[in-house]
Structures are given as C-alpha cells and as structure tokens.
C-alpha cells in the first residue's frame, strides 16, 4: 500500500486552484438546484467506525439495445457485489446517460438495481443539459445533499453548472446537449457549483467541528487539472476555502475517466475509473505522476475502466483501491494507497 504522506512530495502547490479567482455570479438559467435541507445536527467528535464505500461513475449509456457500455456498467456492478466486505453504500459520480435521455437514465437505474446497498447520486453534464436535469431530479432527487454515516460527514454537489450560452443563441435542447457532450467544446465554458450551492455548503458545515471527517463528491475535480476539458471546477477555490477549517477532507470525482490524485492543503482529491472508456492524460505535470494508470489497449474495450472502493479507518485515514477490469494499475496503486 502506498502512503503519500510518507513520500517525498513534489511541489504539489504548483498544481493548485486559480489563485485569487473570484467566482462570477452566474447560474444557469432554468436550473432549480432543489437542495436538500441542511442538517443542523453536527457530527460529534470521535473516531470513525471503520467501513467501506464504493464509487461507480461515467457509464455514458446510449439508447440502443445491447450497447457495449450496458455490459460494462453491469460488470462494474458485479464487481461491487463481489467485494468483501460489501460496501455500506455506493456513490454514483455522474454521467449515467450519454445524451441526457430519460431512457438512458432508466436503463442505468435498472442495471444499478442489482446493488443491494443504498446508492447516492450526483449528476454529470451528460445527465443534465437535455432537460436541465428534470429527468435526473425526477429519478434521484436533489443533486445537493449531505448525510452522516459512522462518524463521517458526506457531501454531494452538482459541479457541472455553466453560464447560459443557449438562450440568446436560440439553441434547441438537443443542440444544447450536443454542445455539452463534447469534452473540448469551446462554447460552454467552465463548470462550477455556483453561488447557491456555495451558500448551501457554508450552512451545511457551519456547525461541524474541525475534527469532523468530511468526504465530498463532485463530478469534476476540485482543483485545476486541465480546464480545457473541464478537468476543473471553477469555484473549487471557494469550496476549499469553506472546507479549510477541517483537519482533513477527502474529495472524489468522476469525469476524468482515469486514475489521478492530487492534494491541496487539507484536501486529498481522487479521480475515478469510468465504466465506458478511459480519457487520455492531458499534457500536465502532475504532483503524483505515479498515479497514472498504464496506457490502455484500444483493442480491449474494457481496458482502463472499472470500479473502486474506499476503506475508511478509525482515525479517518482512507485506503483507496481501484478495481479495474484489466491489469492497468502501476505498483503505486496495485495494493491500494492511503489518502
């Protein structure tokens, strides 16, 4: 098992958020965040009761029958159900659908229904921009939530909100979705959680003590990895500022379809494997380069994909274990790593 705290770290502060960037006040038109009421009860001081949770993400299901992505998502579900011990719950980190269609979301729900434990969902951009999240919210409720479990405070937020580029241009819902489907779209601009969720987050953690273990889930990374592909969240600096009072924060994200790790201040940030396809690594100097998985084989449709689980220990250290379909983990990741 790799322990990054004991490693000689490179200058990971070279890969930090946008210094001094103020969040621009602009939320997507028509977006109703529908946030869950903030729980007032603070998580008390004390140790964590050890447990495991799992993360699945980025199935990108199409509407046609028997698409290969259907089977890949089902395989990942089987991986979770074969974990020993089973996770207490699963978090789905976004992009069940490819084109935001309700039939794609329903297909994903059917595949995920084999999971016997609770599932918590946050959306990705592919789930959202056909109907501005209407179908997604209808199935999964609010994209903004928190809950406490065995001494840990878990937070989920919708990080894929963009400024309205479609109304003035007169784009149809399908055209809007098409713009958002392209990773390197020059039209949509950067994603963020925006002011309403930032306000919610402030209230959510207001009464929590600094020693409260906190885990946060978003679709996009909470650091500036590669903004061109929205491997970023525009207001991540504000999120980190709100959460900086805590001794330790773990952040998990989807979207990048690859193994990646970074640490900024008190926040360790971990990327997750998709069940659809692996994204290439952008030309970015990473603080933890040994966290890059091996190059995937294009002839092996499931190479570079999979599931993952995290074991939280009593002192709120966590062991991250990627569970790939194929052999694509470097030695630093093979037997898990501490976050």
């Amino acid at each position, binding site marked *: 098992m790799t322990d990054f705290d004991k490693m000689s770290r490179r200058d990971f502060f070279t890969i930090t958020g946008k210094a001094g960037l103020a969040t621009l006040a602009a939320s997507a038109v028509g977006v109703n965040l529908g946030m869950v009421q903030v729980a007032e009860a603070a998580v008390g001081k004390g140790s964590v009761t050890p447990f495991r949770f799992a993360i699945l993400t980025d199935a990108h299901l199409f509407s046609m029958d028997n698409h290969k992505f259907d089977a890949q998502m089902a395989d990942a579900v089987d991986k979770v159900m074969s974990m020993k011990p089973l996770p207490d719950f699963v978090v789905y980190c976004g992009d069940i659908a490819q084109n935001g269609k309700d039939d794609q979301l329903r297909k994903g729900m059917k595949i995920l229904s084999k999971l016997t434990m609770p599932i918590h969902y946050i959306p990705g951009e592919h789930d959202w921009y056909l109907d501005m999240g209407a179908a997604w919210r209808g199935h999964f409720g609010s994209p903004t939530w928190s809950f406490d479990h065995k001494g840990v405070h878990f937070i989920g937020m919708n990080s894929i909100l963009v400024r309205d580029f479609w109304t003035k241009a007169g784009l149809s819902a399908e055209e809007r979705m098409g713009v958002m489907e392209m990773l390197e779209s020059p039209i949509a601009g950067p994603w963020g959680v925006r002011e309403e969720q930032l306000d919610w987050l402030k209230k959510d953690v207001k009464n929590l003590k600094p020693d409260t273990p906190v885990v946060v889930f978003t679709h996009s990374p909470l650091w500036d990895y590669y*903004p*061109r592909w929205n491997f970023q969240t525009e207001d991540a600096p504000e999120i980190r500022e709100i959460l900086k009072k805590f001794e330790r924060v773990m952040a998990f994200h989807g979207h990048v379809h690859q193994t990646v790790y970074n640490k900024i201040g008190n926040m360790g940030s971990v990327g997750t494997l998709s069940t659809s396809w692996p994204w290439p690594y952008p030309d970015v100097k990473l603080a933890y380069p040994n966290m890059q998985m091996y190059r995937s084989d294009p002839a092996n449709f499931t190479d570079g994909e999979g599931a993952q689980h995290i074991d939280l220990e009593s002192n709120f250290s966590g062991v991250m274990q990627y569970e790939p379909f194929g052999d694509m983990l470097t030695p630093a990741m093979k037997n898990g790593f501490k976050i």
Partner: protein
Amino acid sequence: MKLNTKNVVSGLLTPVALLALLAAYPAFARDPYSKAELADMDKQLLEVVNHGRDLWHGSMASMSTNGLACGNCHPDAAASNPTTFPKFQADLGRVAPMRDMINWCIQVPQQGTALDVNGPDMVAMEAYAMYMYRGKPIEPGLQTKQTAPVVVKSGRGFPYKGSGIGYDK
C-alpha cells in the same frame, strides 16, 4: 562545400554534386510565395483541418453505429499519436500508416464504415490530428506511452472564426 553556380549553368557539375546543391539550398529552386498565396494556402489547409475536426466529432453518421466518435477517446486528438506513424500496429499485425489505424477505430470500436483511405475525408482526419500535434517531435515506432497534442486553452485548437456563441468567440 563551396559551390560555384556557374558550374551548374555550364553543366559541369556532376549529378551527385547537383543533389548536394539542392539539399544545401532548398530555397534555390523557387522564389518565395507571395503573402497572398501563402494566406490562401493556409486558408485551404485550415478548412480541411476544420472538416477533419467535425468528422472527428461525429459529423458523418456512417462512421459509427454505436454513437461513439473519435473524440470520445481522443479529445483534441490526444493519444491519437499521429507523430508515431508509420509503426507496427499490433491490432493490424503489420507496419501501418495512421490512416489504417483511423479506419480500424472506425470499424472496430465505433462499428462504422471505413473511409476511403485516399479520399478527402481521410486527408481531413489526418490533417486535424497532425495540426493538433504541430511542433511535436516525429517519433515513428511503437510507443509504450501516449503522446499529447499542443496545449489548448480555448477555441478549437487552430485558427478559426468562432460561432459567437458562449465562449466560442
């Protein structure tokens, strides 16, 4: 090697020396193009690059039957590795140019219909990938690591008049 151009004119230079002359003086054969000519050539290239970019992102339905496009796995042409071709391609079992790998991707992961390897659409596909890798070292051969295109901060990654929508200005 000091060359006497009079010898060229008089035909006294041997063929070998003549080849050396051409190699040493690549601009000797023709005067530079005019600015207008160069601008026109750039314009035509970028139109082809832009067509390739559209094809790369799914504009031709016949290239896929399962919804996938080249851009799904290769945003900004990343990891398409155009500067490593020709090379031995394990999936094809032979040394192949990039266009053969493009057609492999169209036919296998995308379950689509291959492009004419000598047609304008294939030229456009290659033009887009190569343009996104401009300035990168040419390293033909089997690569164990992916290669990366130029870093793009905004726009399409090449000179293009934006749509004016959102950030595409």
